């Protein structure tokens, strides 16, 4: 009997705003603990929240980019639970009237296109951060993240494999990044994902008991967590022990590389939602939706199609460059400066990606600016240095931040293309190798190769091969006449 995997995802993305959702505290990451707090986000008595207009704009933008229906009248609700990451003891969220309904994202896995339906998108506030100290009976609370605006994107259970789930998240991340809706920095927690996974007999319509996996902060973790849980459930079904699968929430522990059950009380999920009495309903006008739709920048799917057409890149090359917004911007900047599209792609897919990986840097932190790389490309094109030397220069630019010219100068890498200087070397080699000259005259053409090698050696590799070859040919001709 064959089984199929059923996966649904819930994605939390921090919205790209300057201030928090209900107060004017900054949303900047990495501030001193509790520096970005005020009486409103700390939920002190007597304060009133006021919704940030940019939160509505960005949520509508997300809904538009993800083909959702926008609810022109929607409202906030209170989700009640007690945990120290939430100073108000409730999270302001949306329950039965979310800002967006429905929608879909088209993904492509192994050349097959598939449409993944969305259930909804709602807006809510983020919670604070708890640091549990090792070997001490205390936890430290930092409320800077409390009230940072989030959208929660909920899919239908349409994903049928771990690969589809990972591809979906990648596709969604690219849309949110290109749309400037969220900065999607997974390592900083501004894009997080929970996954629901269950198994059923192929062809079955109903859903079986699902397990919820929480706390997933990277594509690799999503892949690993889902693969582990898929394997566990598949084995239980294969041996007829599916009754052992309980509806539960498991936390992905990246250090241990496995999921662990969360110690939640059985009634902790009874959130007693009710309408937020401190906020008026959210009203969205048709003109607002239209103007947001018009302001939407080029989305990854369109960009992909354009890159393939305009720059003549292969699908694989386009996928890698488009997959990262910073890379695609770098690429276009390089091409705009005048670099050949193919050469620009080779630099990015080769040396840039390799060095970013080695130095563990994100693509928005490439230390060599596009104009600096373009200068290097020009130096190579002019024949001043060889391509091999160019790669060496680029690495030095990447590490030191110096210009291509400065490094070529420092390392003495510039090729000798000056014919006067080259002529001297060539004449010298011809004078000191009379036997080779005789061999050449006797029709042994490989003698020219030997002479060429001697010239390169004498110039310590700096002779421009093309110019040298031409010069050697003409000198040989001269001497044989």
């Amino acid at each position: 009997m064959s089984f199929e995997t059923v996966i649904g995802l819930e994605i939390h993305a921090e919205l790209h705003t300057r201030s928090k959702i209900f107060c004017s505290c900054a949303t900047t990451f990495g501030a001193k603990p509790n520096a970005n707090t005020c009486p409103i986000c700390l939920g002190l008595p007597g304060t009133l929240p006021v919704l940030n207009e940019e939160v509505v704009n960005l949520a509508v933008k997300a809904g538009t980019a993800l083909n959702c229906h926008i609810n022109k009248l929607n409202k906030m609700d209170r989700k009640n639970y007690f945990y120290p990451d939430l100073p108000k003891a409730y999270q302001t969220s949306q329950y039965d009237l979310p800002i967006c309904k429905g929608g879909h994202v088209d993904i492509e896995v192994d050349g097959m296109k598939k449409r993944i339906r969305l259930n909804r998108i709602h807006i809510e506030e983020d919670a604070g951060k708890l640091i549990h100290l090792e070997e001490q009976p205390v936890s430290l609370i930092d409320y800077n993240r409390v009230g940072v605006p989030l959208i929660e994107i909920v899919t239908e259970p349409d994903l049928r494999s771990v690969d589809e789930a990972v591809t979906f998240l990648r596709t969604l991340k690219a849309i949110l990044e290109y749309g400037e809706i969220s900065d999607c920095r997974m390592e900083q927690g501004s894009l997080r994902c929970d996954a629901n996974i269950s198994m059923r007999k192929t062809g079955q319509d109903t859903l079986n008991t699902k397990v919820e996996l929480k706390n997933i902060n990277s594509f690799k973790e999503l892949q690993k967590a889902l693969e582990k849980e898929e394997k566990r459930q598949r084995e239980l079904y294969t041996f007829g022990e599916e009754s052992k699968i309980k509806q539960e929430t498991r936390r992905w522990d990246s250090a241990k590389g496995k999921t662990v059950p969360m110690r939640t009380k059985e009634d902790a999920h009874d959130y007693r939602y009710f309408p937020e009495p401190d906020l008026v309903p959210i009203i969205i006008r048709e003109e607002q939706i239209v103007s947001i739709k018009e302001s939407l920048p080029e989305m990854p799917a369109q960009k992909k199609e354009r890159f393939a057409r305009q720059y003549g890149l292969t699908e694989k090359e386009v996928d890698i460059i488009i997959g990262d917004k910073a890379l695609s911007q770098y690429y276009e900047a390089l091409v705009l400066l005048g670099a050949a599209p193919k050469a620009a792609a080779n630099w990015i897919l080769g040396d840039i990606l390799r060095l970013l990986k080695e130095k563990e840097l994100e693509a928005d932190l490439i230390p060599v600016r596009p104009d600096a790389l373009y200068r290097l490309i020009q130096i190579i094109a002019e024949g001043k240095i060889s391509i091999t030397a160019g790669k060496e220069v680029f690495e030095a630019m990447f590490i030191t931040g110096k210009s291509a010219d400065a490094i070529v100068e420092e390392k003495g890498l510039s090729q000798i293309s000056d014919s006067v200087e080259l002529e001297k070397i060539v004449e010298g080699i011809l004078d000191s190798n009379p036997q080779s000259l005789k061999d050449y005259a006797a029709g042994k053409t490989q003698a020219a190769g030997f002479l060429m090698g001697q010239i390169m050696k004498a110039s310590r590799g700096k002779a421009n091969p093309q110019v040298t070859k031409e010069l050697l040919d003409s000198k040989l001709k001269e001497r044989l006449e």
Partner: protein
Amino acid sequence: MKILVEDVQYIAKLAKLSFSEEQAKKMAMEFESILTHFESIDKFDLSDIHLDLYSEALQPVLRKDETAVFPDKEKLFQNVKSMSDTSIMVPKILE
């Protein structure tokens, strides 16, 4: 809608409150009368009413996306029992 004393005690537990049997009984009756009132509202047929149409008459209440620093951090945390540098220190609570 019938509300039992057990329902009241369950909600009280979720809200981290405790009531005597006497108080819970009184609340059960009050809850019931409130919910019965809602039930009568629920009887209205509103299937042809579209909330979106009414939004035209309403004004959105929003603030600009501008930042400001709340200056008096000392006062802000004056009721916190213990702090470690600028972090709030609480007994370890694991989810």
